[in-house]
């Protein structure tokens, strides 16, 4: 599903070059539930952005579903983002002038699904997330947990092969965090690969595989029992 070989990425700021990912080798199979941990600044978000084709990498290779993700035109990249990947941001990234339902439905707009159909499907996903009653609410009228559920519903609606979530519970209290994790486990059971970046041990413990990043290299890669 996901195959990284010697993946390098640096940020260039002014005259400085910051080497963030220093040769990652990683294989994640279809249907896995993986958490990525590591201290702040270790490169977790950077890795996830590369996996989500939101950012480019410098060296090595990244294959998604056996297709090499390099030198993609923005049009091709858009196609992969739309069909293969669902991304859940730590800061939600909902469109402020669209209500919950329209936000969830937006990926289907780019798949040319008609307005009525996509709104209906969006309602189903909001129902699954338990926030159907908030469908007409604007993002600024929703709580953090509700926004995160909207964002998750949006990531799921296009039935992606993989969902990438960058600290999805970072802004939530522990009860809500565990609820969201249960949702992720549900989603994962339907066969969607899940990669979750987190700082919290009790979150990572709910996943099947924990990857520890340290200073841009994989420090450990443990498969847990559950």
């Amino acid at each position, binding site marked *: 599903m996901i195959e990284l070989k010697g993946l390098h990425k640096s940020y260039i700021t002014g005259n400085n070059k910051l080497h963030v990912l220093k040769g990652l080798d990683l294989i994640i199979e279809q249907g896995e539930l993986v958490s990525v941990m590591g201290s702040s600044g270790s490169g977790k978000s950077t890795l996830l952005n590369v996996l989500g084709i939101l950012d*480019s990498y410098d060296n090595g290779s990244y294959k998604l579903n056996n297709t090499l993700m390099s030198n993609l035109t923005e*049009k091709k990249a*858009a*196609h992969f983002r739309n069909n293969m990947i669902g*991304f859940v941001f730590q800061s939600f*990234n909902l469109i402020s002038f*669209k209500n919950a339902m329209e936000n969830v439905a937006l*990926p289907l707009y780019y798949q*040319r699904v008609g307005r009525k159909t996509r709104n209906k499907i969006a309602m189903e996903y909001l129902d699954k997330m338990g926030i159907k009653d908030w469908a007409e609410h604007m993002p600024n009228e929703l709580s953090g947990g509700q926004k995160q559920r909207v964002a998750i519903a949006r990531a799921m609606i296009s039935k992606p092969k993989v969902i990438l979530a960058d600290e999805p519970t970072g802004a939530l209290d522990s009860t809500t965090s565990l609820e969201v994790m249960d949702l992720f486990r549900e989603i994962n059971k339907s066969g969607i690969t899940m990669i979750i970046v987190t700082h919290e041990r009790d979150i990572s413990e709910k996943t099947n595989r924990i990857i520890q990043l340290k200073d841009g290299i994989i420090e450990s890669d443990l498969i847990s029992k559950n």
Partner: protein
Amino acid sequence: MFDLDKWQEIFSTIKKNRLRTFLTGFSVAWGIFMLIILLGSGRGLENGVRNQFKGSVNNGIWISSGRTTMAYQGFKPGRDIKFTNEDYERVKETIDGIDVISARSMININNTISYKNEYGNFTISPCHPGYAIIKDVKIEEGRFLNDIDLQKYRKVVAISTIVRDALFKNGDKKKAVGKYIKISGVPFKVVGVFSDEGLEDEQRRVYIPIYTAQRVFFGSNEIDQVSLTTGDKTIDEVDAMVEQIRKQFSAIHKFDVEDHRAISIWNKAQDFKRTMDLFAGIRLFVWIVGIGTIIAGIVGVSNIMIIVVKERTKEIGIRKAIGATPYSIVSTIIAESILITAFAGYVGLILGIGLLELISKALPPIEFFVNPEADLRVAVSATILLVVSGTLAGLFPALKAAGIRPIEALRDE
């Protein structure tokens, strides 16, 4: 290729971002509105003044008798100057460069004119045949007076369309020429019907041969005015003619050359040129202000578009992250911008034209302000210019935002 879903998406974005839609639209609508008002007022003023010049040729000179205001060679001021046929003949023979010439009498005759049972009061205007050219009348039926009418003291008359319509009712209307009408009780044969674009009371005239009038009504050879045209002389040549005429009259009628009330000479060519020069200036001014208005509009709409697209960078990042292609993003932004600016331009156009209509309808007819219409082609071109510049201004940041990696767009705060 009408993509309903895309337009729904565009409309929903427009509807939910009212302020920026309004700001974008306003700068366009305002620019076009002001341009229309400006062009329209300029045109209205020009039409009004041009109308003042209608009803006579633009190269005419009118010499009218008056009353002296200066003492001269022992004469006291306040003496009436009287013209006779001799003045007409002399001007005709001695002044070079005359194209057409006519004398006119303004003496009031009983001005009742009748045909069968219909009658009315109209102005009876004795003149020479050339007056048709000087007065710039248009012959609608028959002919104007001719030289033989004058030589033979014929009792013939050319009547205006208004006079014809007043006297010849229904079936007679088409058959006025050849009929006899009574002027002060004297039968005159209608030889022609003319129309006149001049002032309203000039349209209520009938013209009769001046010698006939002198014989039948006045019993003298007095006239009140000599008018002539100057062909295609330059302004300077015409001025020289006017000087020559003034000197000649002053010598014959014994008044001070500087006494411009003894006889008055209206040189229309000079008046006309002066006014047209003024309008060339006003037109230039209107253009400069108009171009300024448009430039202000362009700067305004471009500014707003740049800010709008910048403000939307994060939204663009989100859209890209969930799979929007650069094309779909750019085309949506551009379509939105064209829609708003074109609609706003249209609104400005309608409001501007509406206000002009209102002004010309609601205001009492002012002689110097007629038909204030704006040149639609200019207005539409200006709208297109604003639409294009707003779109271009939005295009570049939109292309940039759509082309970068989503993560960069998302970082934009």
